[in-house]
């Protein structure tokens, strides 16, 4: 039985009067691919942000790997983010005036030192070896998302978080990205948590949980 990499206990997040996440107990095994589904406003993005160290919970406990996230300072959370977590967003969020390689090196810069050779080989791994110097504006949606993937895994994170990464992609690109993620996960053995409202995409995961109004309503094992 794989150890649990994420353990939450009564995790809550509220903004003033609005409670985005009701107390949640969740266990995520190491190396698992977890899909989180729910309509917008159900708190799935909030959950993702908290687990990635981007947001602080209002109450409850959260352990990721060996880190107790509630005990970390702001700078400690930054360290946690850069060493343990890689995030892929729906809108890519690539820096528009930097080339693909430079975008990947940006992640390296905040982690330790930039290393162009390593960035280049990472982009080759995701199949963009011929588009190294292109700006994001010159890349297609699928290519952009692949750069984001390269950027997210360059620092060998233990956790890969995806916030509806295929939301803006067409069907073909979606498949390509998911295939890539599956390959990478087999190689690097990180844990994937993917937020999506697309059933097909969710099916790629090992397990799917459903959130509604901040509450965990259903849990399914995929085959």
């Amino acid at each position, binding site marked *: 039985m794989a150890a649990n990499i994420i353990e939450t206990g009564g995790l809550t997040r509220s903004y003033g009067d609005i409670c985005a996440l009701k107390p949640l107990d969740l266990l995520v095994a190491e190396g698992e691919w977890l899909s989180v589904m729910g309509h917008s406003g159900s708190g799935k*993005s909030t959950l993702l*942000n908290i687990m*990635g160290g*981007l*947001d602080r919970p209002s109450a409850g406990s959260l352990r990721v790997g060996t880190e107790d996230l509630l005990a970390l300072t*702001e*700078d400690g959370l*930054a*360290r*946690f*983010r*850069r*060493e343990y*977590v890689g*995030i892929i*967003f*729906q*809108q890519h*969020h690539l*820096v528009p005036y930097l080339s693909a390689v430079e975008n990947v090196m*940006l*992640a390296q810069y*905040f*982690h330790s030192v930039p290393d162009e050779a390593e960035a280049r080989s990472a982009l080759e791994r995701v199949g963009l070896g011929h588009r190294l110097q292109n700006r994001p504006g010159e890349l297609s949606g699928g290519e952009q998302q692949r750069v984001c993937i390269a*950027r997210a895994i360059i620092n060998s994170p233990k956790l890969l978080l995806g916030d509806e990464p295929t939301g803006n992609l067409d069907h073909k690109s979606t498949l390509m990205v998911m295939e890539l993620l599956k390959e990478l996960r087999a190689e690097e053995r990180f844990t994937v948590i993917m937020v999506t409202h697309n059933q097909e995409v969710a099916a790629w995961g090992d397990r799917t949980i459903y959130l509604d109004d901040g509450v965990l309503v259903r849990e399914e094992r995929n085959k």
Partner: protein
Amino acid sequence: MLLAVLAMASSLATALGIVSFSMEKRVAEEVRKYGANLVIIPETARITVGSGGLNFGEISEPAYLEQRRVEEVLAHSGLKAEESFHLRCPLRFRNGDIVAEGVDFVEIRRLFPWWQINGAWPTAGEVVMGSDLAARYGLKTGEMVELAGPDQTVHLRISGTIATGGEEDGLLFLSLPELQQVSGLGGRLSTVRLLVTTEGENLRQKAATLQAHFPGAKVSEVRQIARTSEGLLAKVKLLMVLVTAVVLISAGSSVTGTMSTTVLERSREIGLMKAMGGTRWGVLLIFSAEAALLGLLGGVAGYLLGIAIAQFITKTVFAASSGFSPWFAAVSVGVSLFLALLGSLGPMISVFKLDPVRSLRGE
């Protein structure tokens, strides 16, 4: 755009600095060009001073200043001044009298820089003759003259003639000690001219202080002309200060506005950097470095521009050229950097406090 604003502001500051600095020097030089600014004359003398034209004056009752006393007073007064001692008295020459003036030629060269000697400056045993005087007696450089005082006679060689268009042309100049000896007026002076290095009100005060020490003499100010130059410079400086202040203030607010817009535009970038694990200080440093770099470049551009502006102003207003002063590069860069960093203070704070979740939420 921001670069242009910073460059302009710092260029004006530089120009102001350069203009006032170099012009102050220039005006001070102009002051010197007009010669002495204070004159001490013994009270009861009736020797008319300096408004051109040949005049021997009414030397009926010659009065003198004691040289020793003058030296003492000047030494103890703490005044920084160039001085020139003069003694005027008649000497017999070829059955007539000519007016001889005893001076220290070294002092003369400092205090009267416009003297042009036709020939050479005199050494011991030599004299300088006014050109009119020389013409009247048909004398030329190199000839010997015999001058007689009450008890002594001397033979001196003319080393050169002088033509200034003023009263000097009718006088004979020899060294002060020699004249004092020949005329038997040892240790006496007719006039003392001073070039004191202050201006305006200060000069009046200094004159008054000196006057107190010379009850039997009159200490008066001489020149008027350099006053106008100084007044003009002061006005130009004031104008430039006002303009520069206005420009600096507007540049500062422009910087703030631009930086705020920048932060707003790039908020997603900032959020991304934080999401990738950049600490708040790290991200802040990046943006501050950008602002500082802009400030630096603006400062350099402003310095070059400022030199051009300063040169233009000094050429048109004062008909002089401003000197080359590399120190103002530091001033320009400093002003520009200061503006850049100060103006971006508010925006930088918002960079620091930016919540990545909010900015990445997606618009």
